[in-house]
């Protein structure tokens, strides 16, 4: 599932993580020539070592753009021509960031492949010069070293990285639908071996410093320092520089060898890879796997394999040429535009546009220790929020506490946490059956059953004990917040926070505001969500808000398609081959049949015919037989603990046979079935924007992709309309409208876009 993994790991290279550090003040240099003319790069000379410091102005990260590129060439030429200089250290002055990658704007500004190819070739040339430098260059890496940053680092003769959590090395280009275009595809396999290089470039995963050392991606590690004569971040960079200088000198004096001793396994692997037959087998295996996972929807991974292959089999020149060509081609694809759009959107949705709340939330209380409540607790305690988890019974509470512990303990098993940190985090959680201590709560999130009268009851109980400033947030997927707030004494403090299950895996948080919700309350909710590591969309209140409202018509269509005689397996394969990470029938099982019915019923009442389609009776009969989906072990499929391959639940056949609908052949081709699902989704999403439920198309795309699994390669419903063409979608809708009626009537905004082709959601 490269696609879903792609989405998952997008978060890893978002700059926001690097943005947290306080500003770092540039130090004075011992000597620097033409200091004032350069804005991105400066250098000083210490002894016979040039210390080249990268610090892009007005930005918290360094990105490889045209200006930085040309200044780098200038500086390097000075370094190479100076007699005084025998070696160089390349370091960033920004804490938490070496180079975060290429400047995306530079790529998106290009309109033809040729322009992109040229950018790639210029970078290739430069990095080749670095690689062939007779004066050793040491890359001193502190913070993110991604994409072009990594390509530069691996061109250097030696790499030293800080063993900091923020130091991550990786080639995330594939997640943007492109490939490492500055020699990365050629150098990385030589450096870490073909299998590891494929893994890095095809998954885009970030690699921590200690693992990078083991892989041979960096040569030395430097431990981050604590407080001393200066603030820790500042002194750590200085220390890194000092250590790098000693290594640069050692390399220049030939006291240190840049070659590293390979282990036995590594030697064997590289021997095996010297046999052409073995290499062919590896290419084949990797290609097969990629094809299976991407279903041909993502062109970048296959091209990466191709370029690596060209380099190894036909030599570097052919490899570099192929790299730049393919880079140019990929940058022009719809897929890369969609993925880059998502990346940008994600960055936007990681900001709090409502400003800082008056009072920071430190004490969080969660009502209901079910799957959602415990999930919310889990993502809160490890961010240092003091969290109270309340439930009505000891058994339910115990289950919830165990879920939190298990979530943390799994991280210990993966070595992402130490057992000590786990225990310290777990101590942030208090489990209780009463409202003790709620008078100190800054925010209460209720995650009790989806029942309005129950929600009213807890809201009243809670308001009796909480302080005035405390925010009351409701985690509901469909109940309108204003109805919940109707019984509140202080509706300005009531807000919706719709988390997605499983909370620790799903990145999205949908925040719902009513007309009465105050701006400060919203700011508070967004702040908590960001702290919990969520990507956040803020939408207006209404039945189903945004996400549930988009999903409901699609689900209705799913049921109709099943009733028309398409089997769940076939339907699943049609949806996944369109790019959905989870098949439509499986999705119903995952969500829960009872939940699906509840939502369909509720929203059906409000929106009437537009949400019709399949018969509710299907879900009702399933529920009556106890087929609630994964949670009950049976839904459309049969689920068994520890069994991966799931079998169809044959009892469903009789239900579907009993409620069979005639299929209409002219709208029932495989493609039509796919588009019937997607166009209903898209139409509803656009309607949400039209009605003002959504503030921006970006939030619509982020919500659809990160919350509902809308195909990332399409970039979300709005990006899809832009790239696919509004007219084509309207045409499809009209065709289905003719067969099924109002459910497919395109909304006004969509028709506006169809009638004027210049209108785009993204300009």
């Amino acid at each position, binding site marked *: 599932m490269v696609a879903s993994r792609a989405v998952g790991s997008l978060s890893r290279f978002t700059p926001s993580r690097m943005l947290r550090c306080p500003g770092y003040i540039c130090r004075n240099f011992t000597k620097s020539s033409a200091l004032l003319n350069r804005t991105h790069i400066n250098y000083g000379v210490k002894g016979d070592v040039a210390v080249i410091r990268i610090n892009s102005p007005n930005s918290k990260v360094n990105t490889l753009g045209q200006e930085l590129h040309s200044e780098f060439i200038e500086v390097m030429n000075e370094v190479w021509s100076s007699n005084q200089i025998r070696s160089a250290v390349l370091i960033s002055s920004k804490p938490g960031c070496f180079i975060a990658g290429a400047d995306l704007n530079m790529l998106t500004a290009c309109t033809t492949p040729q322009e992109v190819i040229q950018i790639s070739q210029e970078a290739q040339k430069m990095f080749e010069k670095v690689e062939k430098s007779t004066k050793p260059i040491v890359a001193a890496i502190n913070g993110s070293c991604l994409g072009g940053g990594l390509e530069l680092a691996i061109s250097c003769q030696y790499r030293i990285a800080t063993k900091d959590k923020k130091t991550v090395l990786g080639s995330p280009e594939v997640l943007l639908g492109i490939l490492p275009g500055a020699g990365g595809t050629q150098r990385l396999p030589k450096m870490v071996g073909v299998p590891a290089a494929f893994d890095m470039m095809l998954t885009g995963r970030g690699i921590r410093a200690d693992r990078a050392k083991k892989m041979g991606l960096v040569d*030395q590690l430097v*431990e981050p*320092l*604590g*407080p*001393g*004569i*200066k*603030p*820790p971040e500042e*002194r750590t960079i200085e*220390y890194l520089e000092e*250590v790098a200088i*000693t*290594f640069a000198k050692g390399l220049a004096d030939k006291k240190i060898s840049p070659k590293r001793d390979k282990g036995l396994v590594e030697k064997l692997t590289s021997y095996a890879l010297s046999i052409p037959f073995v290499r062919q087998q590896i290419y084949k295996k990797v290609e097969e796997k990629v094809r299976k996972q991407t279903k041909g929807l993502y062109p970048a991974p296959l091209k990466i394999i191709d370029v690596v292959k060209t380099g190894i089999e036909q030599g570097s020149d052919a490899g570099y040429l192929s790299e730049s060509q393919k880079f140019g081609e990929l940058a022009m694809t719809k897929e890369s535009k969609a993925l880059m759009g998502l990346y940008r959107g994600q960055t936007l949705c990681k900001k709090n546009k409502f400003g800082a709340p008056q009072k920071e939330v430190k004490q969080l209380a969660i009502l209901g220790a079910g799957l959602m409540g415990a999930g919310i607790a889990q993502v809160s305690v490890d961010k240092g929020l003091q969290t109270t988890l309340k439930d009505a019974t000891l058994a339910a509470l115990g289950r919830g506490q165990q879920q939190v512990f298990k979530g943390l303990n799994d991280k210990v098993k993966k070595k992402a946490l*130490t057992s*000590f940190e786990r225990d310290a985090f777990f101590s942030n959680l208090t489990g209780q059956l009463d409202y003790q201590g709620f008078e100190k709560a800054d925010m209460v999130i209720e995650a009790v059953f989806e029942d309005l009268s129950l929600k009213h009851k807890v809201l009243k109980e809670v308001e009796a004990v909480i302080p005035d400033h405390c925010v009351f947030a409701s985690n509901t997927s469909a109940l309108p917040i204003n109805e919940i707030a109707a019984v509140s004494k202080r509706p300005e403090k009531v807000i919706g926070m719709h988390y997605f299950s499983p909370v620790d895996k799903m990145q999205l948080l949908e925040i719902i505001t009513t007309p009465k919700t105050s701006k400060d309350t919203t700011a508070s909710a967004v702040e908590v969500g960001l702290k919990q590591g969520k990507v956040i969309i803020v939408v207006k209140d209404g039945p189903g808000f945004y996400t549930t409202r988009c999903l409901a018509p699609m689900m209705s269509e799913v049921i109709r398609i099943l009733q028309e005689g398409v089997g769940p397996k076939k339907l699943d394969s049609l949806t996944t081959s369109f790019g959905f990470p989870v098949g439509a029938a499986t999705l119903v099982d995952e969500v829960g049949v009872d939940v699906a019915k509840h939502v369909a019923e509720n929203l059906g009442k409000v929106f009437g015919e537009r949400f019709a389609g399949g018969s509710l009776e299907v879900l009702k009969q399933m529920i009556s037989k106890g087929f609630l989906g994964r949670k009950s072990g049976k839904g459309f499929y049969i689920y068994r603990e520890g069994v991966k391959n799931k079998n169809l639940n044959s009892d469903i056949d009789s239900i579907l046979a009993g409620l069979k609908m005639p299929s209409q052949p002219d709208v029932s081709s495989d493609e039509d079935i796919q588009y019937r699902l997607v166009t209903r989704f898209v139409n509803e999403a656009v309607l949400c924007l039209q009605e003002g439920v959504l503030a921006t198309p970006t939030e619509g795309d982020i919500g659809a992709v990160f919350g509902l699994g809308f195909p990332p390669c399409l970039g979300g419903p709005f990006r899809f309309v832009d790239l696919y063409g509004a007219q084509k979608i309207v045409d499809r809708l009209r065709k289905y409208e003719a067969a099924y009626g109002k459910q497919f009537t395109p909304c006004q905004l969509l028709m506006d876009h169809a009638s004027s082709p210049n209108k785009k959601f993204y300009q």
Partner: protein
Amino acid sequence: MTSLLTYTFKNLPSTSQWALRFSMRPLSCSSQLRAAADVQTKSKQTLAKPNIRNIVVVDGVRTPFLLSGTSYKDLMPHDLARAALSGLLHRTSVPKDVVDYIIFGTVIQEVKTSNVAREAALGAGFSDKTPAHTVTMACISSNQAMTTAVSLIASGQCDVVVAGGVELMSDVPIRHSRKMRKMMLDLSKAKTLGQRLSLISKFRLNFLSPELPAVAEFSTNETMGHSADRLAAAFAISRLEQDEYALRSHSLAKKAQDEGLLSDVVPFKVPGKDTVTQDNGIRPSSLEQMAKLKPAFIKPYGTVTAANSSFLTDGASAVLILAEEKALAMGYKPKAYLRDFMYVSQDPKDQLLLGPTYATPKVLEKAGLTMNDIDAFEFHEAFSGQILANLKAMDSDWFAQNYMGRKAKVGSPPLEKFNIWGGSLSLGHPFGATGCRLVMAAANRLQKEGGQYGLVAACAAGGQGHAMIVEAYPK
């Protein structure tokens, strides 16, 4: 502390004449400075407080501190502790039945004698009616033993308390793995042959891999030497500075030993071996020799080496603490008062060894003294880098303001008053026993050289620290 397990001092080259000469220089000039300091008037005439008992140290002794794995290697911890107690009895002639209570500090516990204070006291011939308990607080365990004694006396619970500490690093508890232990425990409970066989069938070879005592801070998994190396780097302390400081410590210790100033050492006849009369870890070397050593923790470019770290040590110490009026009634001439003390703790990751920096200003403030009032500083030297980092931190306004919540720095102690009879780097550092050595060194220095106030400070694993004011007993 435990991290030192891996490193011993054995491979250090022996004395060089040059080194000795080098280290004399700071000493010769220091006497003038000290004379100048003595002229200054003290902030306070005495730290005695109305309505609070004065508590005195009559005397204190210690066994010679030996590199672990040498003459003490076949002993058990209570043997060493007993030697210290016997030495104290002999030195002070205190009647055994007068002692109200005995407290010992220790770090790595021998499981057979987990209350080592009681076992040693019984063996040393103390009354079996005298209760004894053992405390542990890493490298400040015997400081904790002494301050517990002080509290017992101050609150009127006791009049005469023996406090001490012991550590035997020649032997450490190496355990069976948890799986093996579990199987053995289950086996002992199994009733039938069938149950036993089914348990034994679960045996795997890896059950036999032993469990060594943790060599790292539990909370962070970092060895202390590693943390010390990072600390030195954070304070920009060079390898040379660290080696120079270590050389100073060894040279001063050698001088003190030669001049017979280490009067707290009592000879110990080790069963089956010769009588040990002096510390054996004092080995002044040369900077050239020290520079040859490879870094011990952060490889290959770190600055902490075996030569500028304290070494694994066996040893025990004990002091006799009394209420002043009791001491006088018994006809003693006490050496010093034990005055205000302070425990502190901070981040065990990045400030693991900065205890003295935090404790010093607080204890001075509590006592109403300033740095200028102190005539004898006795700081525990875990690593050269740690001592130098503490000195720099104490001398930094920036650090005081940003990390200690203070308006200004406390100032760094003048080196001519600082550990001038050697320190843990050279004399050795038996974790549980060092605190009493520091107090006796301060008391003996005040007696020998004049001066009124001594300051004892130490860091400890877990990011903790301690400081105490010792006031000379008027002659």
